[in-house]
């Protein structure tokens, strides 16, 4: 019996149709959000020479950007709750574009911190949150697949942006490249244009009576007011009426009482300390072992390629009838698999050992990335997802920023990389096992909670496949 997360939506998610265009839009937005900061590192050397700063000062640029991206999460989720995904993504695209254009005229490094770091970071946050949220409104039954496909944007964009940035740098230097990147990143606005609010789809159809929900997922309400539409959907009016009273629930702190959310949060906070560090240190470790630079870089290419293909595949697996109801176990398995991978890595030797590790790690990293937001959606449900995501990102900000430097200090003190990988392994395996145990209890409790509910309500919201067929029959 699948556990039901509260997915009380005002509409029935299309699970297709324009939804696939929205997946493409989310693909673009997520791609820019994750890959853009990483690809800017190509310019660091020249910028360092130009402004005569030390390496750590230029590395701060990456950190400021990442910190702004995570800190902008709650702001972004408030805006999405209020205005829907589309305006926020378009605003985010404009912000990043303006940030890059302004910074191309920059005269000091502080200028760059403010423009690229703060404004750019916030702009990317305004891309990430809405992209993930809108998938939850368009997809229900095929949501894991949609999430997996959308998250594939990150490795694909990184593979495109890295050589593109190198080419731009060789042709135009860093100033010209920042200017052109400012225009390239405007494609986020295109992605935003594609993110049609979902109410417009079902505008002409009156749907069955709404069950109560604690927050309006009014993708369409505010947007509809500005868009010209002649629909006379009674629910829309009701939504708009509810609008002001829902404003107080923009930041949903009641999530901290949500059992599933707390499990997710605690596990993730520990996990993120050791999630990105192995990627960051893969090439340096390879060079430390005596591998030449190109082969070390090739390891990362292998890793990215495996990652790219595993994400949609994981999404597809997560969608299958067997796994979908127990998707939390799948996520726990993915996290634990990562941990075991890192723990076994010090045993590998030679370049072939590194390649094998890159492949296995690529599989693990891709699996976790594809499921990361899907399981959160599964736990808290699509209406509260936006607020949940905002809270999660700001709390995860700490581990993500502190993880690699702390582990780097570990390498410096011991002079050996194997302690880093063992630590990362433990940091992933422990949450993985934690997830397994906690979700076992959570699933049990949810089953118990559903039994009396099922007796009361004839229509149960949930993610069962049976319900979908029922809905289809009722059309």
């Amino acid at each position, binding site marked *: 019996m699948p556990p039901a997360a509260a997915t009380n939506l005002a509409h029935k998610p299309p699970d297709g149709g324009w939804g696939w265009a929205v997946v493409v839009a989310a693909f673009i937005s997520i791609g820019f959000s994750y890959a853009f900061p990483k690809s800017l590192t190509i310019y660091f050397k020249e910028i360092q020479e130009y402004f005569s700063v030390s390496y750590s000062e230029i590395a701060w640029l990456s950190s400021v950007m990442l910190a702004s991206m995570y800190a902008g999460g709650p702001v972004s989720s408030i805006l999405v709750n209020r205005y829907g995904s589309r305006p926020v993504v378009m605003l985010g695209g404009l912000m990043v574009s303006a940030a890059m254009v302004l910074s191309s005229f920059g005269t000091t490094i502080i200028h760059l911190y403010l423009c690229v770091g703060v404004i750019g970071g916030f702009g990317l946050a305004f891309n990430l949150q809405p992209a993930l949220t809108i998938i939850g409104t368009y997809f229900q039954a095929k949501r894991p697949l949609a999430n997996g496909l959308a998250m594939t944007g990150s490795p694909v964009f990184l593979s495109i942006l890295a050589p593109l940035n190198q080419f731009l740098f060789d042709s135009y*230097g860093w100033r*010209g490249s920042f200017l052109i990147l400012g225009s390239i990143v405007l494609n986020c*606005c295109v992605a935003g244009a594609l993110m049609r609010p979902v109410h417009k789809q079902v505008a002409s159809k009156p749907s069955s009576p709404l069950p109560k929900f604690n927050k309006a997922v009014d993708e369409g309400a505010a947007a509809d007011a500005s868009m010209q539409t002649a629909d006379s959907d009674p629910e829309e009016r009701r939504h708009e009426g509810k609008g002001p009273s829902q404003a107080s629930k923009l930041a949903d702190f009641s999530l901290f009482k949500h059992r599933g959310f707390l499990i997710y949060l605690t596990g993730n906070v520990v996990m993120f300390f050791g999630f990105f560090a192995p990627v960051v240190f893969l090439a340096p470790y390879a060079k430390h072992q005596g591998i030449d630079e190109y082969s070390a870089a090739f390891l990362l290419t292998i890793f990215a390629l495996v990652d790219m293909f595993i994400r949609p595949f994981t999404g597809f697996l997560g969608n299958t009838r067997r796994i979908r109801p127990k998707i939390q176990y799948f996520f726990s398995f993915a996290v634990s698999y990562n941990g075991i991978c890192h723990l076994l890595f010090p045993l590998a030797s030679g370049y072939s050992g590194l390649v094998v590790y890159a492949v296995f790690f690529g599989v693990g990293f891709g699996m976790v990335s594809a499921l990361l937001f899907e399981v959160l959606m599964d736990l808290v449900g699509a209406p509260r997802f936006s607020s949940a995501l905002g809270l999660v990102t700001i709390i995860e900000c700490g581990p993500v920023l502190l993880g690699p430097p702390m582990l780097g200090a570990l390498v410096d003190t011991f002079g050996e990389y194997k302690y880093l990988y063992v630590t990362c392994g433990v940091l992933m395996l422990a949450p993985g096992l934690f997830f397994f145990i906690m979700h076992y209890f959570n699933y049990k409790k949810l089953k118990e909670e559903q039994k009396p509910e099922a007796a009361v309500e004839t229509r149960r919201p949930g993610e069962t496949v049976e319900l979908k067929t029922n809905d289809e029959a009722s059309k």
Partner: protein
Amino acid sequence: MRPDGITNTEMSHDVTVKPDGGRAGARSCAAAAERSARRSRGRRMKTMPASWKLLLLPTLLLMTSCGRTDTKTLDPTQTPPASVPPLADLKREVVLKSENVTENIELRQLVRLFLECSLTADQNKLPNMTAFWSRDGQEIPDSRLTVALEKEQYGIQRLFNITSEEKVGTYSCVFENKVRADFVLATPRFREKRDKPVVSYVHDFVVLPCKMEGSENESLTWLWFKGNETHKERISAQPDRFEIRSQNLTSRLKLINLTFADAGFYYCAAVYAVGSTMNPIKLKVITFWEPLKPFIAILIAVVLLVVVIFLCEKQQSKKKVTEGNEENVDQNNIK
């Protein structure tokens, strides 16, 4: 930078190394004196009236020349004169079999270079083998030796005093059977070679860096040049155009207020006692219009896409509205 041929008289003072280095020089000197004394004795026998001046002159000459040799031979007990900087010792050995070997030697300072070549004997196992040393392809006079087979190898060794830039070159040991080992002496090469040009903008400034590998407390002299392969012009710091900042192993040339004329090749030279190495950096100067063109092109493309998407959406929603109205009309009719 390298002189042609072996013209340096100092070359004659390069002697083979023996464990009792200094005394070998004295011994050879004594042997030379003995040889010339024998010769002059022979002369005395022919010219019957013994003129001691005749004897004295060559002996005196020999003594003075011996004196010169003495100062130049290796004598560990002798302290070098204060004006000559102490030379570091560098030893390289090569084992040869049947193929020629090339060994690259990176020199950062003046050295005493001990080179040793050992040729592994083949099936013939000849008891003796001749070998000589050559420099830049030309045989060094008086370096041809006959070496005996010892522990399956023929060994030949020589000391070279690399005391100035002219002495840097390729030294080779060549064996009778045409097997040779080349020791290529050179100043350190730049590791990071950038083959793409540095791009900067008119009225902007640019910093061209040059970095050399080495130990941390090493202090190098840096020179900058502008020009091309054939003609290079030395750059001196002018306050409104160039700024050179050199610090140990790195040097940075800052060009201020760029113009199109500043584009071209720049060379940074790291100067060592044994010579200097140059690294070319190409500078390209463009106006801001260059990147502005693709920027505007992409901007227009994005705006078009967004407009098209919104228009399509409006069309679709209009269609749905008309369909919806028709449905409502039908439903009303049915009711």
